[in-house]
């Protein structure tokens, strides 16, 4: 999964600098930590997102609204 498609990723802090480093390390095999609880990426002219939680936890409510485009002013 591309770094920029991860919305919440475990155990790693992703910054623009992180992505630059990954581009420089283009020959590196995909790292096994590249998993995300929440992902959102472009498909054609639109977007596909995935929220992987299994308990419908309240802390993700705003994430749902954001990814559905309901927090855009």
């Amino acid at each position, binding site marked *: *999964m591309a*770094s*920029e*498609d*991860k*919305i*919440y*990723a*475990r*155990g*790693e*802090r*992703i*910054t*623009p600098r*992180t*992505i630059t480093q990954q581009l420089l390390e283009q020959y590196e095999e995909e790292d096994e930590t590249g*998993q*995300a*609880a*929440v*992902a*959102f*990426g*472009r*498909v*054609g*002219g*639109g*977007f*596909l*997102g*995935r*929220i*992987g*939680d*299994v*308990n*419908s*936890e*309240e*802390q*993700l*409510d*705003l*994430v*749902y*609204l*954001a*990814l*559905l*485009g*309901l*927090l*855009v002013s």
Partner: protein
Amino acid sequence: MSSYLPIILVLSIEKETWHSEMTGRLHALIRSKARLVEAETKQATYDALATGVAAVLVGDGAITKRKHRELAHALVAYTKDGGTVLLGCLMSCFSAPPDFNRMMQTVWSLPWRYGNYSREGSSLNEAASTDRTTRAPLRKMINVKAVI
């Protein structure tokens, strides 16, 4: 003040009566921001997509199954045409990993795969490609039980 509300289509193809206990709070929150239309059949989904919706929330694992492949392809077409599809709610509970992986590979052509199942802390990606999250007041850290 405009009375316009965007339409959010929620797919509940394999809905059970107890599902509302899991999704009720989120659906109420969505209704505070949008008009929520719930589709429990393929035809209702196609009809809603034809009328135009702001986004689709896939609420269970139905579209990962071969028998609903046509529906999954319709969602891909909707997305490629500019729509937003969000896989969430009960999908991670009720989709088999092989089915999910096959759908992501053959229908969506994305390298997204079923990952570990655990409760872990996850950090907000400050460099995500979408401003839907980078500009929203979201928690910097979450700790949820999830398939990642």
